[in-house]
């Protein structure tokens, strides 16, 4: 069981990267939501969620990401997923959220896409 480590950085004025390492579950999804909302309130229009270090995620974590996506879609922004490990990626597939989120193999590809 790995504690969650959250790193947030702004790539440019409109794009931010939220990196989640460890486990995202019902106990800490609220912390991730707060970090995402802080990036949005600081001006992020597009959010790349880097799941490269995410070893475990449950549906509470997915729900939190859906919440951030809904928030950004209201203003024409987006949340995209990068570098998800196979088990986490499978969770998106099981729940049909691959139809809702764009998922990229790595952060560089996701950044390139959201910057257009």
């Amino acid at each position, binding site marked *: 069981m790995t504690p969650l480590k959250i790193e947030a950085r702004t790539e440019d004025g409109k794009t931010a990267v939220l990196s989640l390492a460890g486990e995202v*579950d019902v*106990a800490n999804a609220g912390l991730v939501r707060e970090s995402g909302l802080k990036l949005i309130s600081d001006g992020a229009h597009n959010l790349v969620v880097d799941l490269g270090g995410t070893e475990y995620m*449950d549906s509470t974590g997915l729900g939190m990401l859906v919440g951030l996506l809904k928030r950004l879609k209201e203003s024409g922004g987006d949340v995209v997923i990068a570098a998800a490990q196979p088990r986490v990626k499978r969770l998106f597939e099981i729940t049909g959220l691959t139809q809702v989120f764009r998922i990229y193999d790595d952060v560089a590809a996701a950044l390139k896409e959201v910057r257009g």
Partner: protein
Amino acid sequence: MKTKAPDQVEIRIPRRAEFVRVARMAACALASQLDFTYDIVKDLELAVGEACANAVEHVADESADEIIVRFLIDPQQLMIEVIDQGQGFDPEAAEPGAQGEWDEGGLGLMVIRELMDELEVSCDSDSGTCVRMVKHRP
């Protein structure tokens, strides 16, 4: 001939988010002792985590302060029951799509249904909610 009762392991955790990991760890430890593959062990961990998270998130009854996680092991299958003693919740309301296209909640039962071989959710105002799930042994 008398049928042997399943081996039974039961843990009780406070109905709070930070204790869900304890139930997940128990599921991992127990499933690892059986003949499940690593991937199935991780599926069982996630299924137990989802059921416990449901009990934490969807049961409004504050008097339900405990979750019981019961593992019933026999040669054919592992049955897991996750029981809270609240007033129950409407399983349909806990399914995705109940409140809109992009629900933030309600994905847990969908995940469990996909990961397990059998799923049954029973609720009543006396005994609360029981999520009963089964994984057949290889």
